[in-house]
């Protein structure tokens, strides 16, 4: 095992190197670019034996990955923001075709106004595209997810593509010390991809066909089952990961001091770290604060969230997203989970970080304070009354 000082993008590329995809097809876009730059260097210097295909667009990048996956090999692509939106059509093709492609998405705002900084409106707009969605908090988790994602996506009970999200710049471009697993351990963890869902000269198949109303419905049901099937597979994969590499992960959510917390922030991505630090500071003042970090938005951890916050007095959902005219998509999902589980506590939505705007520790303190005292359903943090 090597220890290196790497950015989130570089760490992620190391994880992909260890997963050995046979085909990498990608188009560069800030802040994802470093991932594909590092991978193309690895292919060039021989440390990664992959076919690296330079495509002319993101639509082509995912189409190409699908073609590779349909030939029965492991495929990887990476994108961000407008690139993800440009390939949106192909997202549904890949999930419907049950091609277990892994894609890294650097979370970045969507135009207009043009902006390259981080928010989560790109990936959250694609929650219904049938892709597993994981959100990394740090570079180590990004690398580990890169390795785990193939094992989960390719499992026969799942056969579902996997999108790993890294907060643009905050995670993709900041440096941390990262443990890089050895090749032998990575090979022990992740076996080569085998599938019957592929082009085969000896056993010709009709692939990517059409299906009328009756059968289409069955395919969509089976797609839903595949996504739900990821839940036990994620658990099993994390156990195997801990056994081989010694690092433990906690499934669909990551909870912090929620057992006795009165007020809990539910969030996702890198901002969870600052939420935990703020919770510590508030606890030192005698306020029982807690944090739930959502690691997977799909499959959605409805039961886990409800269980974690059931004894709280109120919850806040902090997200870098807004569904204009309603509320943040994460808030909608969380409220549905709480209502269904019979958890009747006030919930408030805090929107922040759009277009990369900083969310400060004092912003988070204010969120805890407003959650305790009650506030509007949806609050854009940092926008004053006089600005409305």
């Amino acid at each position, binding site marked *: 095992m090597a220890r290196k000082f790497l950015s989130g993008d570089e760490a992620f590329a190391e994880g992909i190197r260890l997963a050995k995809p046979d085909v990498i097809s990608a188009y560069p876009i800030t802040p994802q670019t470093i991932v594909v730059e590092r991978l193309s260097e690895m292919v060039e210097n021989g440390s990664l034996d992959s076919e690296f295909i330079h495509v002319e667009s993101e639509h082509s990048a995912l189409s190409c990955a699908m073609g590779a996956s349909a030939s029965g090999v492991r495929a990887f692509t990476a994108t961000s923001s407008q690139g993800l939106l440009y390939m949106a059509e192909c997202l549904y093709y890949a999930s*419907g*075709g*049950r091609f277990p492609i892994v894609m890294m998405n650097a979370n970045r705002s969507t135009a207009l106004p043009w902006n390259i900084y981080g928010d989560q409106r790109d990936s959250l707009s694609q929650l219904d595209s049938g892709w597993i969605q994981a959100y990394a908090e740090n570079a180590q988790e990004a690398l580990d997810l890169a390795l785990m994602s193939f094992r989960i996506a390719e499992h026969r009970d799942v*056969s579902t593509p996997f999108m790993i999200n890294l907060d643009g710049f905050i995670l993709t471009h900041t440096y941390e010390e990262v443990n890089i697993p050895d090749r032998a351990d990575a090979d022990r963890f992740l076996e080569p991809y085998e599938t*019957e*869902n*592929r082009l085969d000269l000896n056993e*010709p*198949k*009709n*692939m*990517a*066909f059409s*299906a009328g109303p009756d*059968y289409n419905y*069955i*395919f969509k049901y*089976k*797609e839903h*089952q*595949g996504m739900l099937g990821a839940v036990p597979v994620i658990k099993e994969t994390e156990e195997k990961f801990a056994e081989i590499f010694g690092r433990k992960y906690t499934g669909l959510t990551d909870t912090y001091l929620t057992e006795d917390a009165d007020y809990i922030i539910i969030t996702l991505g890198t901002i969870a770290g600052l939420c935990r630090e703020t919770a510590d500071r508030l606890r030192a003042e005698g306020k029982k604060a807690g944090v739930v970090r959502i690691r997977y938005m799909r499959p959605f951890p409805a039961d886990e969230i409800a269980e974690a916050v059931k004894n709280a007095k109120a919850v806040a959902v902090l997200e870098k997203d807004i569904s204009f005219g309603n509320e943040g998509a994460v808030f909608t999902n969380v409220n549905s989970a709480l209502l269904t589980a019979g958890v009747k506590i006030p919930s408030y939505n805090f929107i922040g970080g759009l277009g990369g705007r900083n969310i400060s520790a004092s912003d988070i303190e204010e969120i805890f304070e407003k959650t305790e005292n009650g506030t509007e359903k949806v609050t854009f943090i940092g926008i004053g009354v006089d600005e409305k």
Partner: protein
Amino acid sequence: MKPYLREKTSFGFTEVPKDTSFEAGYLVTKNSGWRSIRPVVCIDRCVGCMQCYLYCPDGVISIENKKAVIDYDFCKGCGICSKICRPGAVKMEAEK
């Protein structure tokens, strides 16, 4: 090779694959209902050049004994075979 029409046209839940891939080389239904004109091959004029076979957008023309044969179960009647046929062996006739 002409695809065969499979007799079994109804599938239960467990028979439907989860992947959109399934046994190839057969079709489950005829598809030519909207054809208003049909190509008819004049065997004497056909020289077996295979141009119609190459140009047919639906792949419904096969060459048997060096003559064009049209599969009317799937021909949509577009008339491209007739247009491409230099010896004038394919004539379009109205469907009755």
